[in-house]
């Protein structure tokens, strides 16, 4: 348990330099600092400090750093950034040291399923939601026979699994899958393997740089001619770097889009002024989660982890990013969206990329408590 005096320290460990750095990274860290500033810079009369570190997508780096902060810096709460492998590792340390851990960038549904802990909150999205929202839309649109190109680590595995379940549930079939290392430099041989499968759809169960590179290579090798290539986790940064010409019509699932309402646009504008690009959903969630935590501290009057967790699990959040609630298993349940990338002509202003196809209520998007394998859920 964190000591109840001295500064309140919030830690943020994420990929600052590698393939996920644009999606979250340094800008994500800045969002946490903004949230603290906007909160007034202190809570319960104690100053709030933000520590940040780069885990380079290495679980060992993430968990050592987390442990050190908790042992030596009296860390009150940890925000986990991108990459599920690191998030699972940090969740373990946080549980051992009894500190709230809010995972944002990581997608693996294991965080609130097999590997749930009393101190984990999974805030933004997860692989089940991606599968259910993006996957089922594709199957329903007629892509019945699937082949996966999967990033070979916790996130890719979860996403492939969860998507396969959805495909099968909707009457589709899975022809096979091939796994590529995280941050792969050359996708050609994986794509040739996929090409041999004769499946209708090549689903990319990866993200960030891996997703964009796989898309490009698929084009170069002519895969796009006889297969439909779809991303299961696509961020606005990816669409931006690939360009609308290459992504038009792509359907994708996300938890937030900068242009969805006034509050979002206001946040987005402030972000844009600093970074000359629009925030990703993760960066928005970083801000939102920090605020939620600080509110909880204020509400319970201490940084006591158990009290805070109880509080977080009892109140409804309501801000520009989310209108949801944390469930017993730690899952933050909120609405998810199915977006479609606009064509070059439809897009009128800079970063005007998405149109909303569907808004999926949280209860439908995420695993139901009844299906949860989390030991915290009483059945």
């Amino acid at each position, binding site marked *: 348990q964190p000591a109840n005096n001295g500064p309140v320290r919030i830690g943020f460990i994420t990929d600052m330099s590698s393939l996920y750095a644009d999606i979250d990274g340094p800008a994500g860290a800045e969002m946490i600092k903004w949230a603290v500033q906007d909160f007034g810079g202190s809570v319960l009369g104690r100053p709030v400090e933000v520590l940040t*570190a780069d885990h380079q*997508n*290495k*679980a*060992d780096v993430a*968990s*050592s750093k987390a442990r050190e902060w908790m042992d030596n810096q009296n860390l009150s709460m940890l925000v986990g950034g991108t990459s599920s*492998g690191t998030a699972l590792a940090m969740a*373990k340390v946080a549980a051992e040291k009894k500190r709230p851990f809010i995972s944002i960038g990581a997608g693996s549904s294991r965080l609130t399923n097999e590997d749930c802990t009393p101190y984990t909150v999974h805030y933004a999205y997860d692989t089940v939601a991606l599968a259910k929202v993006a996957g089922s839309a594709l199957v329903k649109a007629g892509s019945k026979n699937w082949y996966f190109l999967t990033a070979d*680590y916790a996130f890719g595995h979860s996403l492939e699994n969860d998507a396969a379940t959805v495909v099968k549930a909707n009457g589709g079939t899975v022809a096979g899958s091939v796994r590529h290392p995280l941050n792969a430099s050359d996708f050609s041989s994986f794509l040739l393997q996929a090409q041999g499968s004769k499946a209708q759809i090549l689903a990319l169960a990866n993200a960030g740089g891996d997703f964009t590179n796989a898309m490009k290579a698929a084009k170069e090798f002519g895969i796009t001619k006889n297969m439909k290539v779809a991303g299961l986790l696509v961020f606005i940064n990816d669409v931006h770097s690939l360009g609308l010409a290459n992504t038009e019509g792509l359907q994708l699932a996300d938890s937030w889009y900068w242009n969805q309402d006034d509050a979002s646009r206001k946040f987005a504008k402030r972000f844009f002024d600093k970074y000359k690009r629009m925030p990703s959903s993760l960066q928005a969630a970083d801000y939102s989660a920090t605020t939620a935590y600080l509110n909880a501290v204020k509400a319970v009057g201490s940084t006591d982890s158990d009290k805070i967790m109880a509080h977080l699990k009892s109140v409804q959040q309501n801000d520009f990013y989310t209108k949801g609630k944390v469930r017993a298993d730690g899952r933050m349940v909120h609405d998810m969206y199915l977006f479609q990338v606009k064509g070059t002509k439809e897009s009128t202003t800079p970063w005007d990329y998405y149109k909303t196809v569907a808004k999926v209520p949280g209860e439908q998007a995420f695993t139901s408590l009844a299906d949860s394998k989390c030991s915290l859920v009483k059945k």
Partner: protein
Amino acid sequence: MRHSKLTTVTYLAILALLLAAPLLGLYPVFVMKLLCFALFACAFNLLLGFTGLLSFGHAAFFGFAAYVTGWFIRSQGWTPELGILAGVVVAALLGLLFGAVAIRRQGIYFAMITLALAQMVFFICLQAPFTGGEDGLQGVPRGSLFGVLSLASDTAMYYVVVAVFIACFLGISRIVTSPFGQVLKMIRENEPRAVSLGYEVDRYKLLAFVLSAALAGLAGALKTVVMGFATLSDVHWSMSGEVILMSLLGGVGTFFGPVFGAGIVISLQNLLADKVGEWVTVIIGVIFVVCVLAFRKGVVGELLAWMDRRKARTQQA
């Protein structure tokens, strides 16, 4: 041994420091990590410094043992000492395999072959089902030593690590001065001559390799128990490079050099990681270059040489 009085004093001082470290407010997890790497470097130095073989694949033993130990403790519920034992045994076997292949070639080839074999182990760890791939093995519980003494507290764990480290350090010193160690020395000095005296040098090299691998495995296994995880970083070639740097920086072929080198490298990484980002790699590289160019004996080696010179001078005078 040379400088025996000074050596004893130094060792006693270090022993005292080790025992008192937690009381002095040093972060025990950090010191434990440091000791694990120091042990790793000593194991490596047994091979490079005392047999003259440069292995560029020692991460394989360190890392694979880390996985094996982690797996037995986490998935099979073994007690830590059994898990560590399993790691050491597997590392020794792996050492036997590596050795059997690599010892057929000498010098640089030996280095490249060990590197390549280690890379193979890396890929196996990346793909094998029990290692957790890129995510690594997470959340390995420390458990209770012999099922009774809980290691959950850092202090308990710390003294166990210190005990193991001291035992191994003394063990290595013994190996080096043993009859076997004498043969290793002959091999390093003049291999054909050793053959002509009737020593089947390959067997001696192999035993040295296996011992070194087993100790490196012990270091990795211990690290898993301390830190609670085993990941690909442990088997990556850069880890093999790091352990070389530690030995080189401290002083190849000296007893205490590798410990010192490990101390410097680990502290540097710790200190710099947050402040300079990727420059850490650059800094490590620069240290490497400086060591090789100007500092081949390493810190401890240069110190010993300096004391030798001084002694010689005072004798002359």
